């Protein structure tokens, strides 16, 4: 599934760093404690979080995250925005909370990495 298609289908999205035209994602993950995310997120997964610190970009890079989705309308810190821009990681904010976002994504067919 293309990131651009996913973002188009969700309401209340503000895009801060655009995804490349044909970047696809296969799985999703949610978490706010960065040590936990580093330890347990699958690679190349879309990441739903409320954490907007610049370190989010470092973890995303480590896990090859193609899209960071900030739930509950969290606005990224300027440092996080810059870093995502530099590293080519798509970054968006969404009005819904994490629970709602994950529900929508699941309904679209996005699953956690452990199930492929």
């Amino acid at each position, binding site marked *: 599934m293309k990131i651009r298609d996913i973002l188009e289908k969700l309401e209340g999205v503000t895009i801060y760093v655009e995804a490349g035209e044909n970047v696809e994602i296969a799985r999703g993950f949610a978490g*706010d404690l*960065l*040590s936990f*995310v*580093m330890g347990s997120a699958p690679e190349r997964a879309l990441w739903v979080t409320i*954490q907007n*610190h610049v*370190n989010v970009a*470092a973890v995303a890079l480590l896990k090859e995250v193609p899209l960071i989705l900030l739930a509950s309308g969290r606005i990224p810190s300027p440092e996080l925005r810059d870093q995502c821009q530099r590293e080519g990681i798509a970054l968006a904010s969404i009005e819904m909370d994490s629970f709602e976002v994950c529900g929508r994504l699941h309904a679209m067919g996005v699953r956690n990495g452990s199930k492929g």
Partner: protein
Amino acid sequence: MNLYRMDLHIHTVLSPCAELDMGAPDIITRCSEENIDLIAITDHNSALNTEALVRASADSGVEVICGLEVQSSEDIHVLCLMPNIEKARTFEEWVSERLPHFRNRPDKFGDQFVIDENNKIIDEYEYLLVQGIDATADEVVEKIGSFGGISILAHIDRPAYSYVAVLGMIPESLEVDAVEVSGHLSSEEALKWLEMAGKRPVIRSSDAHTLKDISLQKTTPALLEKPCFEELALALKGIDGRKVLCPWGRASPLGHF
């Protein structure tokens, strides 16, 4: 220069999670028995009991630094040590303005007693102190610096309420004065966290919530002219022969001790 033992993270009966044995004279007596020279009183988001501890410490040989353990909006704990009571109280105002107005329920969370130096209860703090304030950890660290205080990332080894657990790593650019690792860890367990601290000084503290938590084994040694805030500030920067020594001795990658 003399060798002093410090425990810079001690709670009192003001913290709801602390036991009721954490009274002012009681803490001082226990520290004195354990031969601890310099302590910091760091209740959650409040410095209201620091004055009682300073008064109770008179002529005891135990020196008291006024501080707070601030909980950030991301639930990260940052120790804040201030040069004197006035600064601590002014900083505390900045913290309490940002504390959510969620009332404490003593039956669920524990009592939050404000006491004098003889353990007389003066007041009970109305709002729950163990909540994240409306400021990020990085903002708290910056604010402490602007007050001339000492900022320390608390218990970075813990799975919750620690900078590393929440934010994964400590950025090079973060101007924090020291990093705390829990006092109960062995040298082997501490090693990983000493590396995580990078070039920053590492301290070990008790994070005492009850009297028996306070012990010489959970202190940090430091070379100071005398045990006080100003000397500690110099030691954390390694100025004029003052030095905070690695509490885990040879396990330190910095090779102290």
